[in-house]
């Protein structure tokens, strides 16, 4: 079910000639190949002569390498090479990402050298004629490790003298020191009520259904490195490997076909990919392929979300937020990607969220990113989301403490559109958000008041029903390398429109949404448009698809390029129709005179033919050809927002949580394709349902991962995910087209909504919930402890 409101006046739809495609639930142009098994993913690249890589990995969390004997593996059938740190960790390699730059506190290496620092760390790689033979030989490598005490827990890491990285003086990867905010202590001291709580989150994993993978081939004759990979863009790998190998950027050609999901994991190439690229460079000529298996993906593909947030808030008797303070700890493992893995700085900026607080100086935030002997942190959909997880649970803690309903306490604090522009206590400026409006829409859609009445009756009958709310503001970053994306349009001599974009779609429907924009902006038939991405030689530079930036930023580039192209097209059409460019109207790839639809007309094919093939007829002041390249520079920050509302029933006997209804009211501005918008939200919410109730990456006391298959790391199935209901509030942004990003929000607001719903259900038992994961065993323990506590009263 979908409800749409557009209480704000609709913003300008760019300069679009007509909004025919934008806003439509248009079926995707990607789908025909994907539903018939004709997609082309990285493992579908089967070049002749391909050899296969498999990794020898550490089975010890921390220790010194006492021996590494590769002789038996080298002698094994089909083995071409066994490479160790001595072969690949050359001193002149630069190992840093464009986004984070070189970082002395982020020790990096391709293969483990001298010691190992987490279970799963790659130590050597075997190259063989096929993957079976490579794995056979991996078994024959004799790796001897003298174990050392591992550092696993964040608190321990701060206390112990043991170092995850002996090169560093502490286990703190990055700190966000507390800033002395004048008057903040006084605000707390003078408040009617102060609440403090520490919220914990466990290790969630991205788990794209397609694991990581790469095919690398070095051509010694042309001195070119050819890469086919599964990523979120082609340009960062190209820059990264130019630095890693010390070769010019233009010696590297990176291609990406279809990509089977990522969720942040594939934004940056990781150590195994580096090793394969170096192996290909060293061996020469034959393509080297590595397709990660699922166990590798679970233990070494990057982990996320193991964090704590200590939150303190000061409120008045009415529950109005007067001041807040938070301390954030992030477990970034041994080798986070990129850089030091810290997201606390972003969390700090976003912590005030959708609430007013009490002006500048009313919120403080500090944090630490902490190294441990576990798999390194990687980005996962909304990497900074702990601020929302902590804040939204805290709102319910305060509400319960003061005896105010969680909906009511949010109403008293939430920012409405009437207050815009609004400057947050962390100095971010909201110009086009609608937190209050989404809160009311979500409450209305879920029937909040009626549920409270139903809940009361159910409780009287001994049933445990609960409702949870969560509000958030989602940032889209437009600074640094994330600030621009580009589009190049070539109308070919045949009149076909080729659009070359810097994006790297891995499920976001970019081929559809960008075509919708171009079709409207240029007035061309959508069937004439082809979106080309994932080729570093053909497409303009860009950071790739990630950070919820494609709709607004790549969309901005599409608008700009298409608008410029329309001008060129109408100029040429004007010559052919003997009219001024401003008198030309383009629709469905046909140019005619405005106000005279039945008059003379020319097709885009005729216009293109004139522009390329009959250039003398254009006159001296018209540029020949139809080629345009435009880059859009985004505002430093853009914001979307949403409210999630969920109702649950907890089974007292089994500890199982059943989701009764799940409502999302969101505001991502103008929607290019509402079907795609809802799909992005649904995916994020399902990941949170998995994370809160089923998924949990667990290490034992020795640092061994114990959830290493899909039998242990449990992803939710269709049987666990309910139907979602959507409401759309539309407040157009100030970007071309009025779009905002929303790719991550579904996964940000949902964990606290679910946690608040379970807390609310268990409230009659006096249970306080501050931890995930909420498997049935955990819920049962909470219920039993509550019962015991009551009996002992």
């Amino acid at each position, binding site marked *: 079910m979908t409800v749409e409101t557009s209480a704000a006046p609709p913003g300008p739809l760019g300069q679009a000639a007509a909004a025919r495609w934008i806003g439509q639930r248009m079926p995707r142009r990607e789908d025909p190949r994907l539903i018939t*098994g004709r997609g082309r993913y990285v493992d579908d690249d089967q070049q002749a002569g391909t050899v296969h890589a498999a990794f020898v990995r550490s089975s010890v969390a921390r220790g010194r390498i006492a021996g590494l004997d590769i002789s038996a593996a080298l002698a094994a059938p089909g083995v071409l090479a*066994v490479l160790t740190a001595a072969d690949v960790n050359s001193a002149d390699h630069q190992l840093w990402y464009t986004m984070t730059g070189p970082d002395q506190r982020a020790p990096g290496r391709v293969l483990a050298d001298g010691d190992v620092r987490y279970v799963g760390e790659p130590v050597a790689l075997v190259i063989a004629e096929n993957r079976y033979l490579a794995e056979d030989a991996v078994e024959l490598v004799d790796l001897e490790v003298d174990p050392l005490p591992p550092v696993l827990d964040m608190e321990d890491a701060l206390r112990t003298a043991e170092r995850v990285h002996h090169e560093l003086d502490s286990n703190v990867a990055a700190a966000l020191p507390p800033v002395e905010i004048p008057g903040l202590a006084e605000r707390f001291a003078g408040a009617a009520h102060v609440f403090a709580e520490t919220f914990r989150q466990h290790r969630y994993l991205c788990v794209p259904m*397609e694991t990581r993978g790469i095919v690398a081939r070095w051509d010694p004759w042309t001195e070119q490195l050819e890469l086919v990979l599964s990523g979120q863009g082609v340009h960062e790998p190209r820059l990264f490997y130019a630095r890693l190998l010390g070769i010019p950027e233009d010696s590297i050609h990176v291609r990406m076909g279809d990509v089977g999901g990522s969720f942040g994991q594939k934004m940056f190439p990781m150590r195994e990919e580096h090793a394969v690229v170096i192996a290909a*460079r060293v061996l020469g000529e034959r393509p080297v392929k590595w*397709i990660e298996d699922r166990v590798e993906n679970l233990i070494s593909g990057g982990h996320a979300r193991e964090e704590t947030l200590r939150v303190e808030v000061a409120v008045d008797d009415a529950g109005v937020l007067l001041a807040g303070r938070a301390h954030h700890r992030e477990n970034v493992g041994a080798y986070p990607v990129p850089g030091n893995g810290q997201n606390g700085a972003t969390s700090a900026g976003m912590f005030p969220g959708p609430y007013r607080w009490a002006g500048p100086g009313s919120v403080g935030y500090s944090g630490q990113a902490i190294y441990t002997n576990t798999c390194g942190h990687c980005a996962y959909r909304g990497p900074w989301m702990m601020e929302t997880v902590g804040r939204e649970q805290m709102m319910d803690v305060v509400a319960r403490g003061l005896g105010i309903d969680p909906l009511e306490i949010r109403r008293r604090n939430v920012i409405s559109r009437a207050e815009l522009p609004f400057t947050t206590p962390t100095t971010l400026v909201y110009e086009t958000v609608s937190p209050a409006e989404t809160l009311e829409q979500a409450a209305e859609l879920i029937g909040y008041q009626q549920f409270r009445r139903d809940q009361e009756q159910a409780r009287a009958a001994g049933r445990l029903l609960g409702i949870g709310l969560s509000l958030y503001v989602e940032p889209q970053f437009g600074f640094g390398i994330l600030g621009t994306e580009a589009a190049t349009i070539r109308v070919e001599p045949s009149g076909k429109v080729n659009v070359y974009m810097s994006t790297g779609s891995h*499920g976001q429907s970019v081929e559809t949404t960008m075509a919708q924009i171009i079709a409207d902006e240029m007035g061309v038939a959508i069937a004439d448009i082809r979106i080309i991405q994932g080729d570093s030689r053909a497409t303009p530079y860009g950071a790739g698809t990630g950070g919820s930036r494609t709709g607004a930023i790549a969309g901005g580039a599409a608008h700009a390029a298409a608008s410029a192209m329309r001008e060129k097209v109408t100029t040429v059409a004007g010559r052919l129709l003997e009219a001024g460019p401003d008198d030309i109207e383009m629709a469905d790839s046909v140019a005619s005179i405005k106000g005279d639809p039945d008059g003379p007309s020319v097709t885009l094919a005729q216009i293109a033919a004139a522009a390329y093939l009959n250039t003398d007829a254009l006159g001296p002041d018209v540029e020949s050809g139809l080629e345009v390249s435009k880059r859009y520079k985004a505002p430093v920050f853009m914001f979307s927002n949403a409210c999630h509302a969920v109702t649950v029933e907890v089974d007292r006997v089994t500890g199982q949580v059943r989701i009764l209804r799940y409502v999302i009211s969101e505001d991502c501005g103008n929607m290019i394709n509402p079907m795609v918008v809802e799909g992005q939200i649904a995916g994020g919410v399902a990941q949170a349902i998995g994370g809160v109730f089923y998924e949990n990456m667990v290490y034992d006391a020795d640092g061994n991962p114990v959830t290493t298959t899909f039998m242990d790391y449990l*992803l939710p199935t269709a049987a666990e995910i309910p139907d979602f209901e959507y409401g759309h509030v539309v407040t157009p942004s100030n970007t071309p087209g009025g779009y905002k990003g929303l790719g991550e929000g579904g996964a940000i607001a949902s964990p606290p909504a679910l946690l608040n719903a379970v807390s609310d259900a268990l409230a009659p038992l006096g249970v306080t919930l501050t931890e995930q994961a909420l498997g049935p065993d955990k819920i049962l323990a909470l219920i039993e402890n509550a019962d015991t506590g009551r009996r002992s009263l």
Partner: protein
Amino acid sequence: MPELTGHLGEGVAADTETEVELTVNGRRRRIRVEPRKTLADAIREDLRLTGTHLGCEHGVCGACTVLLDGAAVRSCLMFALQAAGSELTTVEGLSADAASLTPLQRAFREHHGLQCGFCTPGFIVSATAFLAENPQPTDEQIREGLSGNLCRCTGYQGIVRAVRTAAAELAQTAGAGKDSQP
């Protein structure tokens, strides 16, 4: 570049391949495979049908689902040799081209039942077998029936709707006495 002396092997493997004959998407095919080669790898590498995907290689995710003599099986859990003499249908065998999609494939597109598309062939093959066995499923049966396949992008919203829609369409065409192949 580093000196690799002492780190290079011979690269020669023994030939222990065996011939397997089977019917693939209606055509007789003969391949030579190692006895330990999984059916999934043989489909992808030897039959060159890359629509069958590998998401876990331990029988949970369902991305590698194919029809073997009409039954949905996980091709990562079988050896290619075990399929000798069988009739194998992969996702490529369900429709010849984009113009001849099955009602289920059309419904996946219409209801946004896919995003990255990696799990999609497994879902479509599984659901094809499911609907053949259970042409008029309830919503709960659909969710149960699909619970052997994992999707990470869609939250299953469009997938459940697609199967529901295809079932309704198939029921209608079956009622009209037409071909009821899902």
